[in-house]
């Protein structure tokens, strides 16, 4: 059996999702399309190389976390990482749509990411994480819900 990864503070990904939501919504209101590729890159860095390389994950770890109480619970890092990967795919598709002149399609995709990230940041309901859990359960891999 593979060794379990080191659990992480769940508030880090939630902070990342909150910043992502705000950035995408502000970008949408002011029709600032570069927000999609910019945050695709931000998510990609965190998902591919770990929390040290995600700018807002690192901001949380170095500036915000030291000022907070220790987390009451830790979580498996794999589900939020998978969720970030889903975000990268959708924001990349949005970027392609913008480049092709399909502005409505581009914003629709970006807003899907904003809604899912906002849901996770404000309530802890992470749809991408649930997708990962669903696959893990089907494969018979036991995971922690919380």
């Amino acid at each position, binding site marked *: *059996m593979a060794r*379990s990864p080191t*659990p992480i503070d769940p508030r880090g990904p939630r902070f990342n999702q909150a910043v992502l939501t705000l950035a995408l*919504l502000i970008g*949408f*209101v*002011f*029709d600032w399309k570069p927000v999609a590729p910019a945050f695709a890159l931000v998510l990609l860095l965190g998902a591919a190389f770990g929390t040290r390389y995600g700018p807002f994950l690192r901001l949380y770890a170095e500036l915000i976390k030291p000022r907070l109480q220790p987390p009451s*619970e*830790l*979580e*498996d890092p794999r589900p939020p990482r998978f969720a970030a990967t889903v975000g990268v795919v959708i924001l990349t598709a949005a970027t392609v749509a913008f480049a092709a002149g399909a502005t409505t399609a581009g914003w629709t995709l970006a*807003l899907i990411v*904003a*809604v899912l990230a*906002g*849901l996770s940041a*404000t*309530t802890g*309901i992470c749809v991408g994480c649930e997708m990962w*859990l669903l696959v893990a*359960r089907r494969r018979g891999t*036991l*995971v*922690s*819900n*919380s």
Partner: protein
Amino acid sequence: MIPLRLLVVVVLAFAVLLVARLYRQWRGKVRSDKPATPLVPMSIRAGAERTWVIFTTPLCASCGPIEARLRAADPDANVVRIDAIEQPRLSHAFKVRSAPTVLLADGEGRVKARLVGAEAFENYVRNPT
């Protein structure tokens, strides 16, 4: 154009809150157990009238606090913590797919309640019906 986009953002915010509320209600439901579930073995119940069985995994952060709360709230009951990875046959028999999964068994070993996830446990503690 900007007011219209702001309206879209407000509608989306309401939609997120509505979905979150519905999801929490669905996720937090305590489901009564199906009769096909096997009896909790005597070796686990140890003759107790009520047994709480907590299936855990090494990454389950809420399992320890759940065990402590159960021991404090129900001192007459037998509380047993089982590592689902170390006990694959048992976790398979009780269809455990995630941790925490908490079972409440009566004196005969019949499973009377099944709580999957910390949220379902919290709901059960608040309203144990």
